[in-house]
Structures are given as structure tokens and as C-alpha cells.
């Protein structure tokens, strides 16, 4: 009855708790509103209290519950609670709390608001039950996180932030177009399996792929993350790509293409990571590599593989967050995160060095550290599914991870040649955040049963068997031996002040120059041959706009959506080329 009377109707359902996103948006709003003598302290309290209140709220959400609303006959769902959304909900609360502790001394309200709104949007996205609600939070995530990129001190932060925003808005656009097509085709918007059967599936796939850092769409990670502030990068590393993993698990489980996409993601970044000088960019490449393992797991699509993918996403937030924290501490104390400038910091930052090595051991999947218990599930699922060659490829990638993230990062920052830099450990709040993250890495790696009990699917898996431990230990120890041999033999490439061109070269170098040349030629033609062009094009334009002409036809809804998306995407690309040039 009520539903028919009003175009907008909210069904409060049986939910006892609040939508998790609402708590974070309220926190962000409070930070904006607070003024006065004690504003700095009050804002700090809000930064810490928000994720804590959120965690408390999370305990009152029970799987199976939903918070639904209706807008113009569309059944939408603001909150859908199940084991999968709860797992990511818990993860993002923990991540937001660690980030807030780490960034406690940041007094810039813009960064504080951006961080809370960003975490809230990520939570909104994982609890969204339909593609339209997802789209709303998807774009909110893009806008709020762009402010964290812009918060960077370097001269490249402004343009990197703009490129980042354009790419993420474009991803949202694809998602919207896909969602609306999905609605016209199926009559529903439920955020569930969509697959690659239709155009709408491909649009949504591409939207998720941009946020997940698929090959050729990955450069926003390595472009923006190293430009953000020491604390901003920590937040950035925790949410966006993990939301993408969550979305792929919802929309495309068992899509075989993802196995190959993921394998490429796991493999190609390690080569860039080996030669990259900026250690935060090395972590960006290594993030793509780790996401590759998750994407492979989603592609396999068995319960074991999907559990592995989400468990690895959980662990990665902790260990990659920890590694970005240690590099942020180095950047804060020395003013640089470049391998060519650093070295010997263990003398004055020994605790940070040890914490960095804990993160390194975790990402490298050493036994007793968190990566070991989650990556192995994907590897085992590959063998069960008969994907032997991909398994060999990912084994190579595993050795490569240890090489660039496990050894290179701690070695060139804290050991290697003594750079002469003498500094101090980071402030206590940063240290606390790093210690908590490191403790989490060791806890989950040593007692995986606690992580496994949270996973969405029921699977018996035992990571600590003699063969698995032996296999991994041999692989990693001899990878280290290879590093030593290559370094002593002078074969290892030295850290050099440089950038390495990647796919972004197309839109940061070729594109602007090509656009400039084309515009120059057009202007030349218009100036010199304007009159004749007008005469020649007259009949063509006539034909387009006359009754029944191509531009006067009535398009179907689907075609209109596609054209609107295409025009907006075209505008974004032009802006990207202009902005980067």
C-alpha cells in the first residue's frame, strides 16, 4: 500500500544496526562541523571513535538481513548482510582503524574527512545489494579518495590526483551504463552474478577491472599511490582494489577469463618492480601482483579458490598496509622513498626496519606469516582444477614477490650502502599502527583457524603440512640466495634515479602530443579552408538532421545509455589528454 503511494519507499526490515557507511559519513560530517579551541583533539577522537563505533555496530548485523528501499519501482538494497559482506565489513573497519591511528597527527581536516568518507564509501559498496547503490558508493569512493592523492606534498600530486579521478569516474560511468542495460535486459538490479554473456556484463566487468588494476588499466595505482601523502597512501592501499575484488567475487565468480587476466597481473608487475626506484611505486606494482592471485582465485570459482581470494584480500590489507606504513615513516623522516637515496636506515630506525621485514615476510608468504595461509588456497585450487601451467607461472610470481617486495624494499631502504642519513623512528602513533598491523600478520599466519572461521564458504583446508612448508621454504630461501649471488656478482640492477614508462605512456606522453598535433592541424584547416569546408559539409549535415535523418531517429533506451556513456567517456579522455599535457 505505502509502496504504491510514494515513489520512494524504505523498508526498515528487521535490521537492528545502522548501515555501516552511515556511521563513517556521520564521522566525516562531525569533523566538518567541529570548530573551536579543542577542534584538533576532538577531530582526533572522532577519527579513532568512528571505526570503533562501526565495529560495535557490525556485531549487530546478522547474515540474511537486508535494508531495502524502492525508488521509482526499482527494488534497491542499501544493506545486504551475508558472510561475504560481513568479512569485508570487518576488514574495512580494521583497516580504517589502523589508518586512523597511523594518521592521528595529521591535522588537515580535508584529509580526515576524505579518509572517513572514503572508508564509508568502501563499506557502502560492499554492503550494497544492487548495482545502482553500488554505483553511488563507487563514485563516492573515487571522489573522496582523490582528495587523499591531492594531499601529497610533491609537485606531481595535483596532476596524478586528477588523472586518478578521471580514470575512476570513467569506471563508474561504465558501471552505470552496465547497470542500466542490465536493468532493461533482466528487469532487476540485484548485485549478484552477471557474467560475460551480454554487453552489460562486459561494461560492468571493465568497470570492476579498472578498479582492480587489470593489465593495461593498472597504471592509476602506480601513478597515484606514490604521489599521495605518507598517511594518505595507507588509506588508499586498503579500500579501492579490495572493493573491486569483492565486486568480482559477486559478479563474476568462475569466469575463466579471470584466471588468465589474474596470471598476467601476477607476472608482469614483478619485472617493473625490480627496476623501479621509488619504493612506494614498487609497492604499487607488488599490489597488482597480489591482486593477480586473488583474480585467479575468482576465475577458478570453486569454494576453495574463492575463499583463498577473499582471505588473501583480507591479509593483503594488513601486510600491504604495513609495508606502506613503513615506507611512509621513511618518507616522513627522510623526505624521500627512493631506493637510490636511501640505505643504512636500520641504524636509526631499527624498529621500523623489523616491522618492514614482518610485512615483507607476510607478502612473500613465509610460513607463520599471513600470506602463507591464504595464497596457498588459490595455488591448491589451481592444481585441483588442472591448471598446471598457470600454477607454474604463479610459483614464478611467488618467487618474484619475495625478490622485489620481500628483499628489495627492506634491503634498499634499511641496509644496502649507508646513505649517511641519520634520523629517528616515527612518532608513537605511527609505531603503534605498524605494531598492530604486524601483530595481525603474525597472528593470522600462525593461527589461520581464526581467519578461516570467518570465510564465506565452508572448506576444509590445512596450510601447515610438511610438503607445503618445505616447498615454500625452499622456493623462498633459494630466491634469497639468487638475490645474494646476483648482488655480489654485480649483476643486480642498481637503483637509479629514473622513471620507467608503462602503459600510462600512451595517455601521459603520446596522447597529449598527438592531441596537440591534431588540434593544430584542425585549426590550420579551419583558418585556411574554412569557407570550402562549410560548403562541402553542408549537404552531409543536412542529411543527418533532416526528418528521418540519422540524428533524428528515436533510439532505444539501451542505445541512449551507451551513447551517453560514450560521449561522457570521450569528454573524460579529452580532459585527461589536456590535463596531462
Amino acid at each position, binding site marked *: 500500500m505505502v509502496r504504491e503511494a510514494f515513489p520512494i519507499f524504505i523498508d526498515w526490515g528487521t535490521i537492528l544496526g545502522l548501515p555501516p557507511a552511515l556511521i563513517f559519513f556521520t564521522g566525516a560530517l562531525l569533523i566538518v562541523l567541529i570548530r573551536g579551541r579543542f577542534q584538533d583533539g576532538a577531530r582526533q577522537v572522532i577519527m579513532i571513535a568512528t571505526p570503533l563505533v562501526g565495529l560495535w555496530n557490525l556485531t549487530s548485523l546478522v547474515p540474511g538481513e537486508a535494508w531495502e528501499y524502492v525508488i521509482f519501482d526499482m527494488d534497491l538494497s542499501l544493506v545486504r548482510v551475508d558472510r561475504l559482506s560481513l568479512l569485508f565489513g570487518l576488514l574495512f573497519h580494521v583497516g580504517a582503524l589502523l589508518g586512523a591511528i597511523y594518521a592521528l597527527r595529521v591535522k588537515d581536516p580535508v584529509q580526515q574527512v576524505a579518509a572517513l568518507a572514503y572508508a564509508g564509501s568502501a563499506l557502502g559498496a560492499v554492503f550494497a545489494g544492487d548495482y545502482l547503490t553500488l554505483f553511488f558508493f563507487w563514485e563516492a569512493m573515487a571522489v573522496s579518495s582523490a582528495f587523499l592523492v591531492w594531499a601529497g606534498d610533491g609537485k606531481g600530486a595535483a596532476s596524478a590526483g586528477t588523472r586518478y579521478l578521471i580514470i575512476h569516474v570513467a569506471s563508474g560511468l561504465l558501471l552505470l551504463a552496465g547497470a542500466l542495460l542490465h536493468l532493461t535486459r533482466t528487469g532487476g538490479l540485484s548485485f549478484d552474478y552477471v557474467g560475460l554473456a551480454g554487453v552489460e556484463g562486459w561494461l560492468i566487468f571493465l568497470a570492476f577491472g579498472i578498479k582492480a588494476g587489470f593489465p593495461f588499466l593498472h597504471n592509476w595505482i602506480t601513478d597515484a599511490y606514490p604521489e599521495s601523502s605518507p598517511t594518505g597512501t595507507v588509506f588508499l592501499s586498503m579500500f579501492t582494489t579490495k572493493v573491486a575484488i569483492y565486486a568480482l567475487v559477486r559478479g563474476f565468480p568462475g569466469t575463466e577469463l579471470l584466471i588468465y587476466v589474474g596470471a598476467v597481473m601476477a607476472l608482469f608487475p614483478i619485472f617493473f618492480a625490480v627496476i623501479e626506484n621509488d619504493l612506494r611505486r614498487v609497492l604499487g606494482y607488488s599490489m597488482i601482483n597480489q591482486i593477480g592471485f586473488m583474480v585467479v582465485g575468482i576465475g577458478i570459482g570453486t569454494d576453495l579458490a574463492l575463499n583463498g581470494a577473499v582471505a588473501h584480500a583480507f591479509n593483503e590489507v594488513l601486510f600491504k598496509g604495513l609495508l606502506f606504513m613503513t615506507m611512509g615513516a621513511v618518507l616522513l623522516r627522510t623526505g624521500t622513498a627512493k631506493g637510490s637515496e636511501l640505505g643504512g636506515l636500520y641504524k636509526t630506525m631499527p624498529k621500523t626496519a623489523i616491522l618492514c621485514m614482518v610485512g615483507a615476510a607476510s607478502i612473500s608468504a613465509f610460513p607463520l606469516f599471513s600470506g602463507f595461509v591464504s595464497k596457498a588456497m588459490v595455488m591448491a585450487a589451481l592444481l585441483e582444477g588442472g591448471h598446471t601451467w598457470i600454477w607454474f607461472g604463479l610459483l614464478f610470481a611467488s618467487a618474484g614477490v619475495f625478490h622485489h617486495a620481500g628483499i628489495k624494499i627492506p634491503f634498499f631502504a634499511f641496509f644496502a650502502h649507508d646513505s649517511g642519513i641519520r634520523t629517528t623512528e616515527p612518532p608513537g602513533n605511527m609505531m603503534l599502527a605498524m605494531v598492530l598491523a604486524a601483530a595481525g600478520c603474525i597472528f593470522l599466519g600462525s593461527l589461520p583457524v581464526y581467519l578461516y572461521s570467518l570465510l564465506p564458504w565452508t572448506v576444509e583446508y590445512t596450510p601447515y603440512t610438511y610438503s*607445503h612448508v618445505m616447498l615454500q621454504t625452499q622456493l623462498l630461501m633459494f630466491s634469497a640466495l639468487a638475490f645474494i649471488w646476483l648482488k655480489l656478482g654485480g649483476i643486480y640492477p642498481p637503483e637509479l634515479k629514473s622513471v620507467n614508462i608503462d602503459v600510462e605512456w600512451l595517455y601521459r606522453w603520446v596522447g597529449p602530443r598527438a592531441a596537440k598535433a591534431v588540434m593544430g592541424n584542425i585549426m590550420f584547416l579551419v583558418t585556411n579552408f574554412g569557407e570550402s569546408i562549410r560548403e562541402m559539409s553542408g549537404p552531409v549535415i543536412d542529411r543527418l538532421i533532416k526528418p528521418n535523418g540519422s540524428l533524428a531517429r528515436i533510439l532505444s533506451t539501451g542505445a541512449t545509455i551507451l551513447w551517453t556513456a560514450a560521449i561522457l567517456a570521450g569528454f573524460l579522455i579529452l580532459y585527461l589528454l589536456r590535463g596531462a599535457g
Partner: protein
Amino acid sequence: MTTDETPPTAKEEKPRFLDNPRNVKGILWGFLVLCLAVVGYEIYRPLGGASGGVSGDEAEAVHHLAERAGALEFVGSFALYGFVSCVALVVLGKGLRRLAMRPEDYYDPEPTEPDEPTPTSDEAH
């Protein structure tokens, strides 16, 4: 970002344990011995079915793999795989550097910055 401590300036300091090349050498030799010991242990207790049996267990899976592919059955096979992988990674990475490396200000050239010397060429070595 505010900091409460100011970094101390560089000063005369006692040499650390790792400043002595002999100690570093000792550590590296120790590590080599440890590596060989780990492979040696595999002779004593082979990989595969011995501990397998649990569903979804990698030991079981590796055992199947060895049967199917006829590869990686020998002692130390994964050690060799790790070593060769990393050497290949670095050699290929160096090749990539020849193709991809550009000066630090490649995307945003600023000619008036004397304190930032740029790499001389596209070639690393």
C-alpha cells in the same frame, strides 16, 4: 604532517656489527649452509604423499602434479625453481630497463632545476 622529534645530524658513531664486511660474509655463509641443510632434509623426508591425505591439501596436489607432469620430482626441485626464477626475473628486468627507463622528469620536464641531475641515457649499463 607534524613531528615531535627532530632528526639528529650525522655524527661520529661506533661501527655496527653489519659495518664489518667479515660479519656480513659470515652471515651469508651461514645462510648458504642453512639453504643446503633445508634441501638435505628433503632427502631424509621426501615431499608428497607421506603427509598427504587431507582434502585440498597442497601436499597431495604436489604429489599429483609430480605424477602428471613428471617434473619437480627430484630433491631440491623447488629450490632450483626459486633460484632460476629469480635469476630470470632479474635478467629480464634488466632488459626491460633498456626499453622502459627514462629520466626522472620525463613526464614533467623542468629545465630550471640544477640540483636534480637526470640519468644520462635510456641505457642502464
